[in-house]
């Protein structure tokens, strides 16, 4: 720890910028803006928050990859850098779509909590120790619970927040219990020791219990079946930008942390790690349940939630193979998936602001009501469906290729990859149903004038769609990092 504080301050500069930004948002509002109209306040704090996020991005780039810091509490490697940047860009996107979504009663506090969440998520990207991981996870989770319940005009929002909080609290308890068992087994809170226990092929009963506890907690965090029950309600009830953040940045950070912990122990003796089978079961269950239940959804946000569960299954394949194929495919998939979900929620938020509900039919005639939203939605949904040359395709492709190389078409990962490929045809069906309303159907009689999209939201949506196309045409921009 000698001279550690200087390094620690440097390593945590992006998070510090985010927290300072959050405090600045609250302070500026308190000091000067209280008497201004709501719109001006909203705009001013959004600008301050965006500045903070941009500063954090700059700082994260400036810090770069300095390796293990603070006695192993954090590890700033390529994975941490990429995920941090991803989280920050996605937060920026969520801030961008906020003015497009229905207005909230406390916009200033909302933005501040969003920045706290981003700080937690960015910290998750770098955590390399049980304690720092738990702290980061809880900071992010608590902020996300609050963000979920922020819409006081709709009871669904409060209900979703309560559900999310209760499930999340339970998961945190599991995680803490699992971590304490790991600490008891190893006498260390480092990821490397914990990972070695988790990866041991024939672990004792205590290690097995610890593994199950950890998997339950992470399964909750990334909404993998059978721990997904909170997702549909939260996706439906939360304000659109909150749902976007939960579906994008929170997922990305969660997968990165999960993969880092599981692979921290390496591959003992070249054998498959002990956790592989259990994670494969989670992945298979998520793929099947997500894709099949999504078919029955008529509410677009619930549909996105189940599709998120299906994507969680594919992303778990990326986790399973990260030890051999590297973190590149996983991060690329999670980041581009996050961009597409974020954009989809942005579009839904803008439709809701114009008075539309959340059902598929409420998107009818979107191509007339707002060609911009319709075109962006087409990019987002087709990327989620995995149509080349959009980024979603290469994410799936890279993960599936890694899975087949991992253990061939008969192994657990390879077999699941083949199943996942087969299920993409199912997924295309429900994605096309969304686009059918948005692009094919005419606007409903009576309802449906033009939808005005505020400039920041339009910029965020176009940027997200542009990034999906760009990363789809040149996947090496991200994959080449690893």
């Amino acid at each position, binding site marked *: 720890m000698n001279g550690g504080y200087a390094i620690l301050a440097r390593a945590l500069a992006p998070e510090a910028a985010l927290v300072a930004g959050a405090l600045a948002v609250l302070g500026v509002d308190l000091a000067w803006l209280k008497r201004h109209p709501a719109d001006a306040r909203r705009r001013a704090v959004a600008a301050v928050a965006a500045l903070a996020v941009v500063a954090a991005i700059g700082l994260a780039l400036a810090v770069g990859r300095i390796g293990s810091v603070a006695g192993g509490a954090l590890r700033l490697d390529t994975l941490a850098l990429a995920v941090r940047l991803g989280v920050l860009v996605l937060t920026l996107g969520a801030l961008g779509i906020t003015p497009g979504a229905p207005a909230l009663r406390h916009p200033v506090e909302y933005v501040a909590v969003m920045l706290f969440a981003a700080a937690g998520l960015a910290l998750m990207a770098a955590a390399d120790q049980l304690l720092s991981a738990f702290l980061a996870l809880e900071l992010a989770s608590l902020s996300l619970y609050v963000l979920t319940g922020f819409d006081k005009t709709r009871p669904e929002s409060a209900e979703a927040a309560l559900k999310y909080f209760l499930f999340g609290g339970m998961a945190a308890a599991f995680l803490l219990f699992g971590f304490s068992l790991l600490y008891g087994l190893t006498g260390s809170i480092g990821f490397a020791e914990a990972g070695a226990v988790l990866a041991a092929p024939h672990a004792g009963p205590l290690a097995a219990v610890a593994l199950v506890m950890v998997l339950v907690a992470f399964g909750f965090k990334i909404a993998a079946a059978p721990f997904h029950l909170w997702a549909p309600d939260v996706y439906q009830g939360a304000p659109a930008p909150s749902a976007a953040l939960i579906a994008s940045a929170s997922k990305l950070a969660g997968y990165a942390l999960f993969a880092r912990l599981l692979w921290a122990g390496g591959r003992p003796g070249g054998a498959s790690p002990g956790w592989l089978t259990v994670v494969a079961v989670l992945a298979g269950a998520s793929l099947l349940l997500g894709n099949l239940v999504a078919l029955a959804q008529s509410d677009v946000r619930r549909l996105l939630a189940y599709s998120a569960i299906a994507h969680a299954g594919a992303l778990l394949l990326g986790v399973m193979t990260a030890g051999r194929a590297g973190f*590149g495919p996983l991060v690329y998939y999670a980041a581009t998936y996050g961009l597409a979900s974020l954009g989809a929620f942005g579009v839904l938020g803008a439709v809701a602001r114009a008075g539309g509900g959340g059902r598929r039919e409420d998107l009818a005639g979107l*191509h007339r009501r707002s060609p911009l939203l319709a075109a962006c939605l087409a990019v987002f949904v*087709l990327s989620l469906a995995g*149509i*080349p*040359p959009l980024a979603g*395709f*290469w994410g799936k*492709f*890279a993960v*599936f*290729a890694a899975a*087949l*190389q991992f253990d*061939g*078409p008969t192994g657990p990962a*390879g077999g699941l*990859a*083949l199943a996942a*490929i*087969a299920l*993409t*045809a199912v997924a*295309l*069906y429900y994605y*096309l149903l969304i*686009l*059918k309303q948005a*692009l*094919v159907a005419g606007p409903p009689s009576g309802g449906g004038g033009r939808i005005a999209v505020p400039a920041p939201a339009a910029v965020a949506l176009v940027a997200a769609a542009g990034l999906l196309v760009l990363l789809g045409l040149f*996947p*090496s921009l991200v*994959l*080449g990092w*690893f």
Partner: protein
Amino acid sequence: MNLLPWTIYLTLGGALLALAAGARSAAAARWLALATALAGWGVTLLAAARFAPGPGLQTLVDVAWIPELGVRYHLAADGISLTLVVLTGLAATAGVLFSWNITERTGEYFALYLLLIAGVYGVFLSADALLLFAFYELAIAPKYFLIAIWGSTRREYGAMKLVLYSFAGSALVLAGLLWAHAASGAGFDLADLAAGPYTVGEQVGMFALVFLGFAVLAGLFPFHTWAPTGHVAAPTAASMLLAGVVMKLGAYGCLRVALPLFPAGLAFWQPVIAWLAVAGIIYAGVIALVQDDFKFVIGYSSVSHMGFVLLGLAAANAGAVGGAVLQMFSHGVIAGLLFAVVGRMVYDRTHTRRLRDLRALPLHRLLPFAAVTFVLAGLASMGLPGFSGFPAELLILVGAWRTSPVWALAAAAGVVLAAAFTLRAMQLAFFGRAGRLTDAVTSGAARPAVAPYQPITWPERAGALLLLGATLLLGLRPDLLLNWITPSLQSPLFQAVLKGGAP
């Protein structure tokens, strides 16, 4: 030759321009689309003029694209690709001409249309399996919107069915390619993937996945059911493209990817494929014989004709495969022509496609140009000498005979069936009541029928003449294309597959 990649870029650029122009003026979008299609076709013809036939693919572009995944941006062409890109240019141009009457969301229509065409060009020019796959999928998505927005009869059902079948097929292809990639450890370049090594068991499995996946789009029985419903639901130009070019993507994928990569797989599956192809020829022919919807007759006839292509591929000798490629071109032109007559010239004017209703109209008098075109196209479709269908089907049948006479005999029955259903449709639709004009009026058939029909417009005439000219030219000079195709089949990759049957 090095111009060929520009077909893709020009068409994509044209799509964007048409989208932008369509927001202001439908006519501008139309002319832009026509100019783009013509430019693309012109590029293919120019490349064809400079083409020196030879074995193997001639590389056009080859740069690293995604090194992490082993994917290269590798475009290349040989005589087979050249044949098919020329067909694509021709079909695209004719399709634009037959879309002249699209007035709703014109810019978006032509943008999607050109996007589809760009994907098709890309598939035919790809020499990297994954690049080919990416273009292949790029061609799938626009089809849904083209059919669902601008189609007719049960369009949303037809569009969804077609896209899900295509996508399920492409999922099989992707699974097979990834398996091959994992087993060989090579990149996705076709030559690298072909080098293997794979065990026979692996080849049988991979071939099954890849061939079946592509063959779904080629209309392999019993996975053809998307084709008639999709064709019927689609707007005219989209049916022309679907039958004319998109089904060829499937057959081309089988020929370019499945066959050379997994020769042992073909040896194993050969009889199954051949019999499924024969079953498709006969089954679709019989179904076409009893259809009441004019467009369904053509839809099933497409399935039947694509059965010949698949039979030629299954026979796996140079003659039959050459015939199959020729048949791809020939069917692309003829099917386009038939759909143009039925969908644009007849249906857009009479607003009925039921043969029962059309029978009551003296269409040969009301729409003489349509009648003449359909008779000529019908003759070509039946495989009469002088039209392109004849040399193609003859080569396939002779080639199939070399591999197995039973296949050839069974398939020959399909030729007779084709004559039967084409003549029936021709008779009922155009010469149903060959009497005087007044009969139809006084009998009060479907609707008052005294030449209220808008005369055949110039784009329709131009499109029809283009396609008719192509089928006649090839009927008289099939060697024009065979001179490109045959040397291509001498490449080592194809020779590994085509050893069977050659004398």
